[in-house]
């Protein structure tokens, strides 16, 4: 295809991506180097006929508005926002490392810094939910594959629901059920005979319920992909393995799993990308006291009355760096494969 025709076809799509994906990334980087203007204070002397004069310091709103109109980004701050307590917290970490009572103490104190708290939950969510959801999805695929044809359709229908549901709505539905006065919460109280049990109160239980939600909503995707993969497992290989006396488990271990391995890489990649942006369940479960994520931090900075663009920008840049690190192995592999193909 001639270059000109190619670009005529793809230009609208490229423009959309350049304007609303590439440019915002630049804008985020620029924002992250700026910080909100300090407040301009004026001293006002108010005199009353008999009370004498009093001096007051006030925020000069007119001057503030003018300054904001001139420099909407705020003032230049360099890497200041990145290094402050809300983000990488370099000074605080230095202090913790210099003065602590042991390894456990270091970990707890670093965990209490907002950025590291969010980062640890995001990473745990990514790397716990992804493998568990894939394992569950694989098990469901194996089981559904043995079902008679009549029941397959309805089972697939119900299995798709947790994946297709809007994340915020899905997490609200589960959240209402696990509340102390919801069905699961009440049942758990009954089972453990503990009338004060609440999944919201302890950080560990909050994390557990968020991870449970993650597996619930991620498993169907692995299931569908693996189920489609199972249909392509070569029948004669399986049969010859049976003739050689391979047990059911051995057939799965040595034929099915190697056959599905490329699919598993794909599923893992997609789910890691999606789980890294975990955000809606934290809003839905109102879990921000015990668990936060990088995306939630950005949302929180932007949603408040005083929108902290600088702070949100810095967290965004750090998140993007995280995404790139996560993607690097895939990019390198694709690059090698492509070169291989060309040569």
């Amino acid at each position, binding site marked *: 295809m001639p*270059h000109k*025709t*190619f670009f005529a*076809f*793809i230009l*609208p*799509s490229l423009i*959309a*991506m350049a304007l*609303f*994906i590439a440019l915002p*990334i630049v*804008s*985020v980087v620029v924002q992250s180097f700026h910080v909100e203007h300090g407040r301009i204070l004026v001293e006002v002397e108010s005199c009353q006929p008999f009370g004498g004069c009093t001096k007051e310091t006030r925020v000069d709103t007119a001057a503030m508005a003018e300054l904001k109109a001139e420099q*909407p980004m705020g003032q230049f701050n360099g890497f200041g926002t990145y290094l402050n307590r809300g983000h990488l917290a370099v000074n605080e970490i230095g202090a913790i490392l210099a003065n602590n009572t042991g390894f456990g103490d270091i970990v707890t104190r670093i965990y209490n810094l907002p950025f590291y708290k969010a980062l640890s939950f995001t990473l745990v969510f990514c790397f716990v939910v992804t493998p568990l959801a894939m394992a569950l999805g694989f098990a*469901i695929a194996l*089981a559904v594959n*043995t079902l008679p044809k009549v029941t397959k359709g309805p089972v*697939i*229908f*119900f299995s*798709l*629901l*947790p994946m*297709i*549901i*809007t*994340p915020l*709505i899905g997490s*609200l*539905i589960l959240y209402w*059920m696990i509340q102390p*006065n*919801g*069905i699961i919460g*009440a049942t758990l109280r009954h089972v453990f005979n503990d009338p004060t049990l609440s999944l919201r109160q302890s950080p560990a239980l909050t994390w557990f319920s968020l991870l449970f939600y993650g597996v619930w909503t991620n498993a169907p995707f692995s299931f*569908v*992909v693996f189920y*489609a*993969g199972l*249909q392509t497992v070569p*029948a004669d290989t399986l*049969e010859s393995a049976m003739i050689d006396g391979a047990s059911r488990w051995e057939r799965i271990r040595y034929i099915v799993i190697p056959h599905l391995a490329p699919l598993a890489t*794909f*599923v893992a990649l997609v789910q890691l*990308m999606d789980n*890294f*942006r975990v*955000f*809606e369940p934290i*809003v839905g479960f109102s879990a921000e006291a015990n668990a936060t994520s990088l*995306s939630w931090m*950005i*949302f929180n900075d932007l*949603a408040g009355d005083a929108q902290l*663009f600088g702070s949100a920008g810095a967290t965004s840049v750090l*998140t993007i760096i995280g995404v790139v690190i*996560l993607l690097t192995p895939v990019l390198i592999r*694709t690059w090698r494969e492509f070169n291989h193909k*060309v040569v």
Partner: protein
Amino acid sequence: MSQATLSHKRPLGLTILITAFIVVWVILAAFPFFWTVWGSFKVEPDFFSRESWWNAIFGVYTQRQNDGSAFTGSGYYGAWVTREFWRAVGNTAIVTVSVTVISLTLGTLGGYALARSGQRYAFWILILALVFRAMPHITLVSGYLLPFFQLNIWGVLPTSIIVLVAINQPFTLWMLHSFFLSIPKDLDESAMVDGCSRFEAFRRVIIPVMWPGVVTTGLFSFLLAYNDFAVTSMLLSADNQTMVPKISSFLGSVQEQGNVMFAVAAVVSATVPLFILVLFFQRQIVSGLTAGAVKG
């Protein structure tokens, strides 16, 4: 796979185990939805019962408050009429339909070009799209806000629509690219030999055969726009909110006023279209999920 021969030899214990596992999974996957739909027709002391969740099944308080009837539509009335949820439903309809139509139009053109180019830069565009696909949406949103305030285009539906279209492009391009690869090159090339220009060949030969792929991709574009929370909650003013951000803004206020059932009813209302979608397009959704996987 020779399922028939295998299943004859399956021991009874294994069959029971498999059946039990499937039953547990289906309950796990579907029960929360049925429970919430059922509960949305009850009053709050029943659905969020402090005494026993049997109340939610029999509707003890609902009967007391409704002259003996165990079902009430008051949650729905409150959400749709009192809190004007219908407005959000209308906005969602506008946003999802526009996003789907626009992203498919741009995506088919771009995906077709990528599938037929074979140049090095086509590969790079695809890789770039993959990186863009991985960007968390909220990081992009934090880049939009200031410029949109400055340009005075914040808060209106068209801005959100175009943003969602752009965010959707990487995925649409990938999916349609692999779909067009499966349409034989000879088809449009023979049309060009017959004297069509590239665009005419696309219009006369490719468009008539591309609908299965477009429908599948369209489903996922629809879902992205429908399920979005990060973009619509930050970029729309309160009057223009779509369903999902509307529900999230419900939560704070209705909990204080003791109207949680409004939120429950709104949640169920927003779930129904998704149910219908899966019911009618199950096959396309499954094939769409696997198409990307099998080729990638």
